[in-house]
C-alpha cells in the first residue's frame, strides 16, 4: 500500500488545481450558480484534459487510471464546489454502463470520456429511502417504460438517460431490474428541472410508455457498481470541500479581531478547529479504506461504503456548521464563500442514501451477527 501520489496522480491533481485557480474562482462560480449552473466551455476543457476519463482504462477511452485517480480529481473539484455534473456523468453513469458489460454501453463510455455526449442515471424514486434496489418504475414486455424518477442530478445537461425499470418481482427485489438507454427527448419522457441547495441542477422525470434500448436484463450489479464508485467520489469531493472550508476558516480567525485579540488566540476556537481537522481526516481515512476495497465482493463492499457514508455525513455536517460558526455573522451571508461550503456539505450527507440510512445498514448487519 502506498499513500503518496505517483507521477500521473500528481499531474492530475496539479492540473485541476491550476485550472480551478484560473477559471473557477468564487465569483465566477457564483455567477454560474445563479445562471444555468453549467458551462459548455468548462466541459470541453474537462474532455480535452482527459479528466472525464480519469478513472478509465485506455481501451475505454481513459487515461489508464482507476478509482484512485478519479477520487484525486473529485477531491480537487470539491475544493471549488464544482457545479458541472462530473460525478453524475463521468462516474455514476459511466461506471454503471461499464457494469452492464453491454457492447453498446462500452462505446457510449468512450463518447462520454471524449465529451461528445452526456448520460446520467435515472434511478432514484421518491419511496426508495436509501434502498438501492427500490424500483417501482416498470417496463413492459415491449420495452415501454412507465414511472417517475426523482432527483436525477445533471439531467438538464444530458442527452441520454439510463433508466432502471422493473420487469419482475416486488419493489425492493434485487432481481428483475432492467436498464434501458432512453433519449432525453424521446416521446413519453417529461422532464421538470430544478435547483439543489448547492447550485447544481436536477430533474424530476416521468415516463409514460417511453421506449428505450435494453442494455441490461438484470441490472442490479451494474447499479451497485455505479453507486459504489459514485459514493467514494462523493466522499472525495466532501474531503476536498471540508479541507478548503477548514483553511478558509483558519485564515479568517487569524485576522478577525474581537476583544482586542485575533480569534485564533482563544483556546476554545483552537480546539474547535482541531476537531474540524480530526473529523475531516476521519473521512479521508474511511475513503482510503473504501477505495482500496472497491473491487472486493459486493456484500463486504456495501458495509465498507456504508461506514464511509456514515462518517462522511457526520464529518460534513460538523465541519460545515463549525466553519460558519467560527466566522460569525458573515458566515450566513450569500455573498461570502463559507456558507456555500455549508450548502454543499449538507447536500453531500443527504445524497445517494443519507448517513442515517447507511447507519441502519450497518446496524442490521451487526444485529445479524456480523
Amino acid at each position, binding site marked *: 500500500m502506498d499513500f*503518496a501520489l505517483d507521477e500521473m496522480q500528481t499531474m492530475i491533481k496539479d492540473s485541476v488545481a491550476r485550472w480551478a485557480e484560473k477559471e473557477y474562482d468564487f465569483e465566477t462560480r457564483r455567477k454560474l450558480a445563479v445562471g444555468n449552473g453549467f458551462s459548455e466551455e468548462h466541459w470541453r476543457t474537462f474532455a480535452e484534459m482527459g479528466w472525464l476519463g480519469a478513472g478509465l482504462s485506455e481501451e475505454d477511452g481513459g487515461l489508464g487510471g482507476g478509482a484512485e485517480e478519479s477520487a484525486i480529481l473529485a477531491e480537487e473539484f470539491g475544493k471549488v464546489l464544482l457545479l458541472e455534473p462530473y460525478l453524475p456523468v463521468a462516474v455514476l453513469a459511466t461506471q454503471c454502463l461499464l457494469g452492464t458489460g453491454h457492447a453498446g454501453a462500452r462505446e457510449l463510455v468512450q463518447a462520454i470520456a471524449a465529451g461528445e455526449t452526456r448520460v446520467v442515471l435515472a434511478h432514484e424514486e421518491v419511496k426508495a429511502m436509501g434502498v438501492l434496489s427500490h424500483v417501482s418504475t416498470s417496463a413492459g414486455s415491449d420495452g415501454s417504460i412507465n414511472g417517475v424518477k426523482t432527483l436525477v442530478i445533471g439531467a438538464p445537461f444530458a442527452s441520454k438517460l439510463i433508466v432502471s425499470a422493473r420487469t419482475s418481482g416486488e419493489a425492493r427485489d434485487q432481481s428483475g431490474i432492467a436498464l434501458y438507454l432512453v433519449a432525453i427527448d424521446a416521446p413519453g419522457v417529461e422532464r421538470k428541472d430544478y435547483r439543489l441547495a448547492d447550485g447544481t441542477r436536477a430533474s424530476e422525470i416521468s415516463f409514460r410508455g417511453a421506449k428505450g434500448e435494453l442494455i441490461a436484463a438484470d441490472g442490479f450489479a451494474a447499479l451497485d457498481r455505479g453507486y459504489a464508485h459514485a459514493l467514494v467520489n462523493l466522499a472525495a469531493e466532501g474531503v476536498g470541500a471540508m479541507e478548503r472550508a477548514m483553511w478558509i476558516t483558519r485564515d479568517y480567525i487569524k485576522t478577525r479581531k474581537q476583544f482586542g485579540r485575533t480569534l485564533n488566540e482563544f483556546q476554545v476556537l483552537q480546539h474547535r478547529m482541531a476537531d474540524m*481537522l480530526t473529523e475531516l481526516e*476521519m473521512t479521508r481515512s474511511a475513503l482510503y479504506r473504501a477505495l*482500496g476495497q472497491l473491487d472486493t465482493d459486493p456484500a463486504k463492499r456495501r458495509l465498507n461504503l456504508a461506514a464511509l457514508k*456514515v462518517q462522511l455525513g457526520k464529518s460534513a455536517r460538523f465541519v460545515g456548521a463549525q466553519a460558519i460558526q467560527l466566522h460569525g455573522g458573515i458566515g450566513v451571508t450569500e455573498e461570502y464563500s463559507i456558507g456555500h461550503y455549508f450548502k454543499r456539505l449538507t447536500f453531500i450527507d443527504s445524497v445517494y442514501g443519507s448517513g442515517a440510512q447507511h447507519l441502519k445498514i*450497518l446496524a442490521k448487519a451487526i444485529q445479524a451477527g456480523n
Partner: protein
Amino acid sequence: MKLQIDPKYDAFREEVRAWLKEALPADMAARTLQCYHTTIEDRRAWSKILAAKGWAGPAWPKQYGGPGWDEWQVMIFEEECYLAGTPMVDEAGFKLCAPVIWTFGTDEQKQRWLPPLLAGDQYWGQGFSEPNAGSDLASLSTRAVRDGDEYVINGTKIWTTDVHYADLIFCLVKTDPEAKQRGISFVIVDAKAPGVTIRPIIDIGEGHSLNEVFLDNVRIPADWLIGEENKGWGYGKLLLDNERAYSAEIPRNKRTLARLKKLAHETGMIEDEGFALRVAEAEADLSALEFMTLRAMAEKAGGTNFPVGSILKIRGSELLQKLGGLQVEALGPYGAVVYPHGATNDMPPGPAIGHGVLADFMYRRAVTIYGGSNEIQRTIIAKSYLEL
C-alpha cells in the same frame, strides 16, 4: 497512491491466529477477556511462552532478538493477541524503555538489560509523571545529583503502572535544575534499592495497577544513565514519536468492540434498534481509525508535520470510552453491580460475561488523560499544524 492491501498480511494474520489457538491456555484467555488488570502469574507465564516462540518483542529489530516484522505486522500480531485474550505483557519495558536503550545505550547497557527483558525474567516500570508534573511533564522536579561513580536520586513519581511487580524503573530526572527541558536525563533505577518506597493507588474500578513511587536518597551507578546527561527529554520525545502510529489502540478497541457485540447478543440488547445504531456508529469510527493508523505508519517515513498521532490519540481514546459505556448499557440493570476482581460465585447476580465490564469502564476514564491529555493533543494540532 495505491490502496489495495497486500494479501500477505491476511496470511500473516492466519499464522498468528493458528499459533495463538495452540499456545494460549484457555483459562488464561478467559481471565484476560474479563478485562481486569492482568495478574503477575498470568503475565509471567505468558511472557515465557512468547519468549520461547521468539515473539516476545514484536517490534524489536532482529539484531536484538525481534522477529523482524514491519509495523503493520506488529499491529496485526497485537490485534490477534487482544482478540484471543492474551495477558498484558510488560508494555513499558518492551515498547518504551527498550527502544531508548538500543538507540542511545552503550553495548554494555544493551547486554545488561535487553536479554532479561526479552526472556521475561525482568519487569519494568515507567517513572515519568510526578504529582506536580502531569500534562506539563517538563516541569518535573525529581533530582539526580552526581556523587563520584553514582547518582543520588530524590523525588516522587506517580501513575507508575505495575511498578509493584517491577525489578527496574526507567525515570526522567532533572540533572540541571536551572534548565527546563534541556536539564532532563533518562536513568534506570533498581526498584528494590534502599530508599525506594512504593504506595499503591487504587483506581475507581477498585483495581490496583497504579502506584506512587518515593525515591529517597536512592543511589544508582553512574552508568545507569542512558545516553548523555541532560538529553533525556529528546529521548523521551523520540520514543513517543515512534509510538504515535499506535496511539489509537486499535487492538484494544477491536477487542472491546468484539466483546460488546458478544455481550449485547447474549443479553438481547442488540435487538434494540437505537442501541444497535450506536454500536454501528462506533464500528464505523473504528474502521476509519484503523486505516488512519496505516496512514500514520506510512507518513512516519515521509516526515511531515501532519499531527496524525494526536488525532489517533483523541479519537482512539474517545472510542474506547464510548465502547466501554455501551458495554455497561448492554448489561442492562446489571451494569451497575460491582463484581470484585476474581469473583467466581453466583453472587452478586447477573451474567458471568458481565464480570469486569464495570471495572474496565471505570479505569478507562484514564485513557483520555494519559499519554498527553486530549486537551493537550488538541492544542498540539492547533499550534503545530493549523498554526493558530
